């Protein structure tokens, strides 16, 4: 029920922000559309902890994302330097390692974070095993037990009751 209410609010806010017109007709149409989408989503059974992970809460937004953005900027800069270096100092490496997340949501957050960070791409994502292509040997070596791994695991653990 909490999830359904939150989905409705998010959808309605999305409508209002995109529309920017606050006439009675459009306000009512927005509410109607948000309710309709909510009904479809309920029928498809996608309103759950995985489809709408509000239990991650503000911590994900204000602690994990800023850290991730900082990491993205750092590794973007590193990859850019390598691209601009005339010697092209890359050492492409495939690495398998065991992520420490338990839930599928945690694994997806970890894999997406790896891929979002330039220099590493998650190729295969399984429960106990990630296959990652890294641009450099160092990048591949730093994956197992990384700070990202710890942070996502902490996010996931605090979130699950």
């Amino acid at each position, binding site marked *: 029920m909490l999830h359904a209410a939150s989905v409705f609010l998010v959808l309605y806010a*999305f409508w209002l*922000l*995109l529309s*920017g017109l606050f006439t009675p007709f459009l306000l009512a149409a927005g509410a109607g559309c948000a309710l309709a989408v909510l009904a479809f989503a309920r029928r498809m059974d996608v309103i759950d902890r995985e489809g709408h992970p509000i239990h991650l809460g503000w911590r994900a937004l204000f602690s994990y994302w800023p850290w991730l*953005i900082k990491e*993205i*900027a750092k590794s*973007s*800069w590193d*990859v*850019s330097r390598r*691209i*601009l270096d005339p010697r*092209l100092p*890359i*050492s*492409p*490496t*495939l690495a*398998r390692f065991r992520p420490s997340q338990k839930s599928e949501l945690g694994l997806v957050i970890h*894999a*997406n*974070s790896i*891929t*979002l*960070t*330039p*220099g*590493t*791409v*998650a*190729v*295969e*994502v399984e429960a106990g095993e990630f*296959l990652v*292509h890294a*641009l450099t*040997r160092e990048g591949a070596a730093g994956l197992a037990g990384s700070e990202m791994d710890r942070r996502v695991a902490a996010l996931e653990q605090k979130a699950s009751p």
Partner: protein
Amino acid sequence: MSAVVDALSWACLLAGGFFCLVGALGLLRMPDFYTRMHAASVTDTLGAGLILLGLMLQAGPTLVAVKLLMVGLLLFFAAPVAAHALTKAAMTRGLAPKLAESDVSAPIPAFPSPPAPLPGGERGAS
């Protein structure tokens, strides 16, 4: 708009443009498909992010800025999924990455059977 915000906005736009160019250059310089993905991700994370941030500063606190933020969020979620799908598809098709070390102690891409090459198709970039 104050001159400071304008200057910040232009700094973001120029830096974003720079990273987009670097990503494009990387696409040309990298040796194979997988390494090119890394170059492309510079463009769609820092490049696109900085340009969006610069445009948000230009827009000021308006609905336009909110819409730009939504574009950013969409990229933030869609880009890694697309990159993962591409690399996984390439790996499943049997496109071997060019690696720094060819002596793989553990057999890394462990697929049950190597997929047949596409008939007559050109395999892989480069």
